[in-house]
């Protein structure tokens, strides 16, 4: 990206002469530096996959202490790309908001309501010089009775769109190309976990990036809850991804 701020990039309260808010653009850059995340909407639910870079071999995995997958309420899952601490703050806001909705309305918050409220919150951080935007892309997903599975993604600018499949982070272009090839509507979550894993493995750049671990979760019509993949399913998906990568490598030899 060659355009320089030239003095219009010092705060989010300023437009540049060509109509950009540079702080927001820079926040988007922060997301582009992060590991890839993706979500796929199938016939019976939504699958999340995360390319989680292993920062240190000393991390304790079983405490889920290093994770980019979160539950907002029992029925809503979130995957985040970007600055991790910004993500944690946004996740906390989403959780509080969902809990408040549940208290006030007596029902779990509908996904589109939560997505819009979190997006408004993110947008609010693009209006003032005293605070900076969130350097986070947050993908939210749920399965709701009468509506079915849904995915929404919130960007640092505060826009939120619904998707059938979406990716964010380093390899989002490659991932989107792969996602577009899939007939998502015909696939179940059991199919999608394999595809999601394959796409993460294929998008991972071995030469430039740190080694990664595959993190996955799903929200299915069956449980109507956001859950991490059971161990056997994760192993299955992981193996599929590794195999697909080997096949691709051997093809290109």
């Amino acid at each position, binding site marked *: 990206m060659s355009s320089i701020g030239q003095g219009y990039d010092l705060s989010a309260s300023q437009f540049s002469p060509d109509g950009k808010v540079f702080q927001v653009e820079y926040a988007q850059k922060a997301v582009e530096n992060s590991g890839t995340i993706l979500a796929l909407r199938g016939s019976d639910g939504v699958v999340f996959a995360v390319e989680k870079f292993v920062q240190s071999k000393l991390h304790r995995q079983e405490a889920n202490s290093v994770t980019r997958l979160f539950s907002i309420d029992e029925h809503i899952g979130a995957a985040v790309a970007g600055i991790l601490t910004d993500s944690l703050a946004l996740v906390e806001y989403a959780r509080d908001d969902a809990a408040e909705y*549940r208290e006030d309305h007596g029902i779990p918050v509908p996904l589109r309501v939560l997505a819009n409220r979190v997006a408004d919150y993110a947008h609010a951080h693009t209006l003032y010089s005293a605070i900076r935007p969130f350097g986070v892309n947050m993908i939210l997903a749920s399965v709701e009775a009468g509506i079915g599975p849904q995915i929404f993604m919130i960007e640092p600018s505060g826009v939120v769109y619904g998707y059938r499949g979406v990716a964010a982070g380093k390899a989002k272009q490659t991932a989107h190309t792969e996602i577009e090839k899939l007939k998502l509507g015909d696939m179940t979550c059991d199919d999608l976990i394999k595809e999601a894993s394959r796409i993460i493995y294929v998008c991972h750049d071995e030469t430039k990036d740190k080694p990664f671990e595959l993190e996955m979760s799903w929200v299915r019509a069956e449980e109507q809850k956001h859950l991490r993949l059971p161990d056997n399913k994760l192993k299955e998906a992981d193996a599929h991804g590794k195999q697909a990568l080997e096949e691709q490598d051997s093809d290109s030899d």
Partner: protein
Amino acid sequence: RRVHGGAVVGVCYDQGVLLAADTVGSFGSLAKLKHVSRVHKINDMVAVGFSGDLADGDCLLNELQNMVIDDSVLDDGTELSPRAVFCWLTRVLHHRRNKLDPFYNQFIVAGFDKKANKPFMGCVNLLGYSWEESIIATGMGLHFALPYMRSQQEAKSGVPFTFEEAQTVLTKSMACLYARDCRGWPQYQVVKVDGAGVVKSDVQYSRVAFKESADYIEGRNS
């Protein structure tokens, strides 16, 4: 006058705990609400039952349910233990007692302590006073159920009830409460807590035969 619930009865057995409460919400002497749930699963280790003011009881139950959701969303492998729920209720109730604005309830907390691998049952009242026991009855149950439960327990000489014995004690206590408590109701629910989890039964009914007064009753068969 506010809507209130009757007795809650709890019996520990060797592998777990049984809690029962009838499903009526009384408005003084009026049986106003017939399908009130006064025993509830909190999570896989804990159940609670409450008697007294139903609005206050529901308020605290709602708080507990929100705490459970917070736990599950955090996804760190921990959940509220029976003692944690027991302690929390005691502290909240005692705090309100100190402000002379009590939650007008008596709670029974029933759970399975996974660390100790033992059943747990405790009672907290509106004063914020709490105690642990293997047999508990709140409200009118203190007078009608507890003496019977005590005699059954003493007959066991320190050996815990088996599941079947606990069920019998519970069923008879609930039947006695329906027969003797003016605000009693024959329909009740039972929650079972053991190492495998918490199971809430479908509604059950007390069967009471009023043998002594049969002669005085004129009806279709007389």
